[in-house]
């Protein structure tokens, strides 16, 4: 679990005060993915916390409620969807993006998991797609 300063500024938000930068929680059991997402989203003006397991995710949520949650489907200690269900109870209105490399039927995902997740983004999609989804869910 960590937060980082932006290494570069793309959106012009790098100088924004900490309190005004939106907080995003990223949950994934692969550290390289966590690092990449943290670097990318921080550069785009978000404040990012990362968690590599369910317990760390719970700690982050308790410390400071995120504006959005990005989670993988497969975690080391639990299933991502189960964790999302748990966090949904704590944060009913917080949008959740399921970011996974598991082959899923997007339509089936949308129909069956609409109550749990707000959006589904494949790990093979460009980061720009993820960024657009974040903007849509947080600012839209």
């Amino acid at each position, binding site marked *: 679990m960590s937060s980082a300063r932006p*290494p*570069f*500024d*793309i959106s012009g938000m790098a100088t924004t005060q900490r309190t005004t930068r939106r907080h995003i929680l990223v949950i994934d059991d*692969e550290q*390289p*993915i966590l690092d*990449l997402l943290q*670097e*990318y989203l921080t*550069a785009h003006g978000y404040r990012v916390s990362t968690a590599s397991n369910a317990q760390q995710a719970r700690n982050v949520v308790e410390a400071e409620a995120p504006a959005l949650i990005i989670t993988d489907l497969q975690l080391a200690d639990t299933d991502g969807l189960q964790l999302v269900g748990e966090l949904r109870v704590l944060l009913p209105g917080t949008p959740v993006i399921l970011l996974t*490399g*598991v*082959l899923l039927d997007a339509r089936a995902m949308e129909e069956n998991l609409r109550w749990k997740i707000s959006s589904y983004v494949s*790990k*093979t*999609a*460009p*980061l*720009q797609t993820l960024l657009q989804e974040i903007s849509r869910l947080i600012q839209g």
Partner: protein
Amino acid sequence: MSTDPGSPAPQSDTTLRRVLLIFGAAALVLVFLVFVTLRNVSQSAETASLRNQSDTLLSGLDALQVTLMTAEAELNRYLLTSDARDQNVYQGKRVELREQVAAITALLASAPEDQKLFIPVTELLNRRTEDADRLLALKQTGDAGALRQRLIDTGAQGDLRELERRIGQLRDHHIALLSTRDRDSSQQAQSTRWIVIGGLVLELLLLGGAAWVIRDALATRQEAARLLQTMNEQLEERVRQRTAELSATNAKLLAQNIEDRWAKQATEHQNRYNLLIIDAVSDSVFVVTKLMNVSRMNPSAVHLTGVEPSGLIDKPFTGIVRLADGEGAAPTYDPFARALAEGHELRSKRAIVTTKGGQSVPVRLDMYPLRDRDQVVGGVIILQTIASSSLS
């Protein structure tokens, strides 16, 4: 932009030289003015001194003339009255007369021409004094006849007229001299005035020229400074723009770098995930190239054939699997290669796997072509073992 603000150092040197030249000329004019003024003042002082001297001389000559007349009157009175008091008065006037002559002689000490004019006066005075002494002596002897004759012989009136003429001549000479000196003094004053005015005008012109040169240099310098400032501002603006462009490019490159890393990990992740799926399948799965060489096999296939992947990768699939008899496989005919070449699937074909130990295992074979943009690049072959009885 090709703006050249000029070279300040040479401009400054030229200006300095010009200003120094003008101030040098002004200094020369000033020195000339001082010199001329001092000379004229000196001449004026000298003229004033000479004028005073002339005035004193004229006064002395007037006094001498009066004293001479008085002395002659006193002498005549004494000759008529024989009164000792008159004689004393006369003697006093003679003393006075000598003093006045001495004073005038002293005044004329530095004027030889005037001395020449005054010498006849002194000679006449001396002669007159001598005549007076003789008359006094005759008076004291009481010889009235001799005294009368002496008075007739001396011709005192003639000497006195000559004295008067000579003194008047000297006076006229000095009055003329005084007039000349007055005129010269006036001309000197005029000359001094005009020289001073001219010099001041020239000084003002030179100072004006120096001011103009300095103003011109300052204007040039201000213009150069303005141009330099403009250039600096333009340069700073270009630097700002370039910095902004570089920052944007850098940010873009960094973003692209992250995207690339993300794509790479996504590919690796997907590849790994796909392999996991293949490996998890319980059937024997072979991935073959377009030429039917094995490029991948899952653990179940390893278990079926008894051959490790290193022994089969890049080897012909037909080396271990053949279609079962009755499927019409001629020696020169490869149904797998043909199916791939034509993009056909093979479904539920019976085939025989020859294991590493030489055992023949009957299997059911399905083959699916792998397409990449409508081009067949290989195939996936799935083998399911079947009982020997089913095969037969």
